[in-house]
């Protein structure tokens, strides 16, 4: 996990911020048809795979990661070209953040139960 975060940080630092802007609507279609949700959940809040919301990477770093992922399957440009990845990225950026645990009374009750 640490290695992954380090890789992501370096990639992000090296990345140019000048990637093509994506189409979030098309990105949603791809997010569903490519079953990204199966690991990351329908709202990108994680499950078997990592949380995508809030997205810690810029678009270029995100695309670099998908091309050469660690535990996650890597997707080549042949099957997910840059423009499609940009669309998926744009969709992920639209997904709302979860409420903070501090604002969820049930979670606060659970924390007090110890």
């Amino acid at each position, binding site marked *: 996990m640490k290695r992954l975060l380090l890789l992501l940080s370096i990639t992000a630092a090296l990345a140019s911020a000048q990637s093509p802007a994506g189409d979030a609507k098309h990105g949603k279609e*791809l997010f569903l*048809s*490519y*079953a990204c*949700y*199966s*690991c990351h*959940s*329908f*709202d990108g*809040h*994680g*499950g*078997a795979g990592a*949380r995508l919301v809030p997205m810690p990477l810029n678009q270029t770093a995100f695309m670099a990661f998908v091309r050469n992922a660690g535990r996650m*399957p*890597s*997707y*080549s440009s*042949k*099957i*997910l070209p840059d423009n499609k990845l940009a669309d998926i990225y744009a969709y992920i950026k639209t997904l709302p953040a*979860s*409420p*903070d*645990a501090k604002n*969820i009374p*049930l*979670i606060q*009750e*659970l*924390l007090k*139960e*110890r």
Partner: protein
Amino acid sequence: MAKSKKTSVDRRGFLKGAAAGAAALVAKPQLADAQQAGGQNGQPTAQNRGVNGSAPAPTEVALARETGGRPAESSRIIEHPGSDYMVDVLKTLNIEYLAANPGSTYESLHESLINYGDNKMPEFLTVCHEESAVAMAHGYAKIEGKPMMALIHGDIGLQHASMAIYNAYVDRVPIYMVAGNHSDGARRAPGVQSMHSAQDLGALVRDYTKWDDEPLSLGHFADTAVRAYNIAMTPPGGPVLIVCNAEIQGDPIQGSAPRIPKLTLTTPPAGDLAAVREAAKLLINAERPQIIAQRMARTPEGMALLVELAELLEAPVNSQERMNFPTRHPLAGTGWQGYQPDVTLNLEVGDILPQARIDRARGAKTIQITSVSVFHKSNIQDFGHYADIDLDIGADAQATLPALIEEIRKELTPDRKRAFEERRAKLAEAHKKAWDQQIESAQYGWDSSPISLARLSAELWPLIKNEDWSLVSWQGFISNWPNRLWKFDKHYQYIGGQGAGGMGYGAPAAVGAALANRKHGRLSVSIQTDGDLNYAPGVLWTAAHHRIPLLTIMHNNRGYHQEVMFVEEQAALHNRGADRSHIGTKLWDPNIDYAKMAQAYGMHGEGPITNPDDLVPALKRGLEIVKKGEPAMIDVVTQPR
């Protein structure tokens, strides 16, 4: 024989005949008769419910219909068939229930059980699939710590049962199976009876049955029946099979009945004392010991012993597969961040290779205690890999813990005790931190629809925590959220998983566990995966019919989710798109309506719940019904994991 086998109608033969030529029978409005004779909608009323056992009695009209086509009187009567004696033998074993799908190979025993045996000890439970019967017994044994019986019809029933037998075998769970067979080729009828019989019936499942026998006389049956129970219960536990010839069942008892041997359970094998002393020394001298427990606690006593051992050593306990250790104990977990064990104590761990590899890489010592080391078969590879182990104690872990605890107490010096106390403080702090993080992580996807498994588990907890509850489903497919949020501290509060990873276990095991919980007045809750339920959903009817209180909450992710991920991975590996990964893996178009499914099987069903705000009221309604002694189902559309 009590009646002509040539004129009797076999279960499968009947079904085949009905399908081929008697479609009109299905369409015939016989329900109207039943409605007149029974209660509302033709259901049995409280007045005509059976007095012996929980199953309702058939209505008079239904009874007349069933018996109307039979000969008025048989020319031959056998008042004391061998199957009566078999019931006498079975009653000495104190088996509470048997689950069965009816079949002609054991019809004499069936009749003896319900009439001669008065349908008590064991009580007959009607089940719609043999796999469900065995899996129910699997779940029951995990709660009750002793076997339930599954009665199986010949080679066809045994083949249906085989997957559930395999799960129980790998899970080391005792199950008592009796299968009928028309062994005598000269006496069995041609056709169906021959097709449903085998020369060596046990061979069909022998690779994953702990022991089987086919007794040739009533005296032999008594010996085998008692021995089978003993073998099933001796660790490692497992399913045992008695093949029960239809001829021995149906023939009259000749002379006085044979003596029934006394059941004396074999004491579980405990570890060699010299080896136990060596283990004690390694653990005392370790700076960072770790205990890993899988199928360790067979009974509540096993859990208490593990707590005692952990507190003596002040070592973290990583509990898996069973309720081995309280989840909120300060020593629960894997230690603080960077805690690198220098000795691991592995208690009834299935495949030790991954842990042994880690230990070897860091120069740590590996100790294993498992009864499986002294019980092996060849074909099925569930024994896992051979691994480098420093101390391998072939014994039942639970039975060995008292000696290990005693040896540690004897050898423990004040210096080591002080070191242990320091370790405990650090471990307790790490446990609290990890626990808090787990709870806080439930926030992710809190408001999502489909509903997150964290939200589902969190919302359910306040509704059951003040009850005497029991989670009768596996947590592997729900990201272990109950373990991360709830307080598990009793042995019966969790039953673990399938054993061999075979789907179709979850629903019947939950019903079997709920059956065991019923007499203790416990509240049974199952978070049920959709893929698993669809193997043999008829067990819902069994729960309704026998009034087994169980709240089933569907984890309805509309697919075989693990396989979606596997196909995606393969597509990426093959450099092809993952946009077809839903083919063969998803259960949608149409979506399955589980509320209607539950209703069709005769229980309360509601949903699909998609809005998290609707969850608690639905769960409350379901719990209210379950507390009244009935099963209920709430269908919740969920995130994949």
